């Protein structure tokens, strides 16, 4: 028997808002949905409807989310990419974002790739590097395809040192490059000799020293450190100062213990100290490990990757295999450093929104009200942003609690169904790169993942369930 009669009628109104009048007049409860066509078109709307509250999807999401929660990313060491990343081809350069051809890449990424070729000593200068690339000698692939992530241009070449993150729950690994620091650096497309020299220093001095230190220290569990950083004002994407400070606190006793050469010790401490974003790459690879744990559950509608290459924005979904769903990368609304404006900005770039994918970054913005000084808005906007993300996520990650919300847990597990149904796109805090190679960061702001990516994914997920006309 239907529950329509005999109990209080409570109505959800979808469409003509005037219909609420007669209901309110009668004193019955009604809530009006601020409706707009899901995904902007009827096909997406229809595909979505088959998936909403569908038990198979909920079950898959429950499994995927539990795997994400149980993930335990630990920093276990570092080494050259070619030595530690399995199956890495000889002449490959990994980049941020979904796959893209050289001719379509944006300037900062091209500049960074050139720099990497020079660093690898495959070419001596820009010209020879370009020739090499055009001859097809070098292959490109997204970092994500090798379980890695990189911020901004996200360039990882075979000789570059990478962090090794191991998920101790699943014994799988994720990787990221080391953060070069601020200013004119490779990840913004700079490839002048001093940039290359710095990369060599990182390869030959910094990395070995860190490796020895880490061997002394043993594996570091990253989630507890990140949780603490969230309690100290970081959101661990655009604001990493506390996390970086906590990290160096871990390192220094072990570094001293490792009996490194004094000048080396002095150099590496000075370097890490000068870079408030040093922890970013660790945060990103920890998030990558967590999301990899959630990936690959058939039927799951949870987003396991979001990434941009400066031209396209791409997402991956747990139940849809390794396919990327892409759309042009948006421009960013933000605050610019003096002398720069929106005309100078490159479209959204980098793998760093893996942090938002895992429920931190802009999703935990409530933890970092100070971020609004960089990205714009007010402190209450920061809190509202986190709260808004609750409407598009599966649940919350109680490993990451937010003091400003009475230690409520951060929303996590972006559900493509909810994104399309509500029209609320995931929010991302991000730095803004200059569109020309090598200039560097020119500001920071807030952007949203393009809805179109999720629309494409919805259609394919509903096909996965082999809909004919069955509801």
């Amino acid at each position: 028997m239907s529950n329509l009669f005999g109990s209080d009628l409570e109505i959800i109104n979808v469409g003509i808002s005037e219909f609420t009048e007669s209901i309110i007049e009668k004193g019955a409860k009604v809530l009006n949905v601020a409706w707009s066509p899901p995904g902007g078109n009827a096909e997406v709307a229809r595909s979505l409807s088959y998936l909403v509250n569908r038990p198979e999807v909920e079950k898959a999401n429950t499994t995927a989310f539990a795997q994400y929660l149980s993930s335990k990313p630990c920093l276990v060491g570092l080494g050259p990419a070619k030595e530690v990343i399995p199956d890495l081809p000889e002449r490959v350069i990994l980049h941020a974002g979904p796959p893209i051809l050289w001719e379509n890449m944006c300037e900062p990424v091209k500049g960074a790739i050139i720099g990497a070729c020079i660093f690898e000593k495959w070419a001596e200068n820009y010209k020879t590097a370009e020739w090499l690339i055009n001859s097809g000698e070098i292959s490109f692939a997204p970092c994500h395809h090798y379980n890695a992530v990189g911020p901004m241009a996200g360039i990882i070449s075979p000789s570059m040192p990478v962090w090794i993150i191991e998920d101790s729950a699943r014994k799988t690994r994720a990787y990221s490059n080391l953060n070069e620091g601020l200013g004119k650096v490779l990840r913004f497309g700079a490839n002048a000799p001093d940039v290359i020299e710095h990369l060599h220093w990182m390869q030959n001095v910094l990395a070995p020293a860190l490796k020895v230190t880490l061997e002394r220290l043993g594996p570091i569990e990253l989630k507890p450190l990140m949780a603490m950083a969230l309690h100290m004002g970081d959101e661990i994407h655009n604001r990493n100062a506390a996390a970086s400070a906590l990290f160096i606190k871990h390192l220094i006793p072990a570094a001293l213990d490792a009996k490194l050469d004094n000048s080396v010790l002095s150099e590496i401490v000075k370097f890490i100290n000068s870079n408030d974003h040093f922890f970013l790459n660790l945060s990103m690879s920890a998030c990558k490990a967590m999301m990899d744990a959630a990936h690959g559950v058939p039927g799951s509608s949870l987003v396991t990757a979001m990434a941009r290459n400066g031209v396209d924005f791409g997402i991956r979904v747990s139940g849809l295999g390794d396919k990327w769903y892409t759309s042009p990368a948006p421009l960013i609304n933000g605050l610019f450093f003096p002398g720069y404006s929106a005309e100078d900005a490159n479209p959204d770039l980098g793998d760093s929104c893996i942090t938002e994918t895992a429920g931190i970054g802009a999703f935990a913005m409530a933890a970092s009200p100070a971020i609004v000084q960089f990205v714009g808005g007010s402190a209450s906007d920061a809190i509202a942003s986190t709260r808004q993300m609750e409407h598009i996520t599966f649940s919350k990650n109680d490993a990451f609690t937010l003091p400003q919300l009475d230690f409520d847990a951060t929303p996590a597990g972006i559900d493509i169904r909810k994104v399309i149904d509500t029209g609320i796109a995931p929010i991302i805090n991000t730095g803004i790169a200059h569109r020309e190679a090598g200039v560097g960061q020119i500001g920071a702001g807030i952007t949203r993942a393009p809805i179109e990516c999720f629309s494409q994914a919805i259609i394919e997920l509903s096909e996965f369930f082999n809909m004919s006309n069955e509801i």
Partner: protein
Amino acid sequence: MRFAASEISRKTINSFTGKVHSVFRSTVNLMLNDGELITLHASNDKQQLPGAISFSAPLGFDFSHHVKHGTNICCRGGILRLSESDLTFDLRLAQNIKLEKNYYSSVNTNIKNDESWQIAWNFLINNRGSAGLILAINKIEPVTPFDVALVSRAQECIPLLLSSVRKNNIVITKKAASRLVGAGPGLTPSGDDFLVGFLTGAQHTFQNKEQIKCINFLGSYLSKQVGNSVDISCAYLKHAASGYTIKSLKDLTKLIINDTYRTKIINSINIVLRFGHSSGSDTVFGLLCGLAVKKPLLSNIIIDTLNNKAAKVKYI
């Protein structure tokens, strides 16, 4: 926060409405509009509570941080939502467990070995509980006049119950039980806890139709005690009357019937004692009485213990 129910021990329905009735750390009782009581149980320990929906919760989860008495609840499309909180439960993913009923389920008709019963009894009377019917048999002296009166009632009613059930005397059974319903401290009064245990024990040892008539009558009587006791407690009495009790109590019962391994029995008792809000000792007391009904030797031990205590208690 979204949870998936892991076990449901009632017929699955996709749609119901009600309110939060009582809130504890890892349990919440929901009173539905149709009068039924369900328990939401955050636990990994698969207790198989009757009328319960279990789910696995993170460490430190505390219901009282999320809901309070009177909070509205509603289940639509298989999703249970609690108003003014972000807790949602997907009930469709739960394994619908068929609870084992107490009677007609045991292969054994009688306790194999009085020894295991003795082990349990001795452990119980050394229990240091200082409230409830346990005071009638353990080594703690009742202090307050209320406790004295309660102990006196226990000494009067429990022997009556033991003999009346053995002799199938419905009238006396009803009289004795009625004096225990609602009696004693606790959200579920001690007397009710005792009777839940008693029913469980008796259901396991009566196998033929004649003998079971009295137990069925007692169960039926105890199912109708709304108005004489706290509503949650009445719900548990009703479940017990139908043959459904928590798994840990069932496990203990089976151990006593089938096993003599001392450590196992004591561990099992401890599990029951830990569960719930100090109902445990009275429940075990009742269980042992229920198991002893058909055994005059064991019944006498119970009565003697009660009487010895009586001799020491001054009746005001």
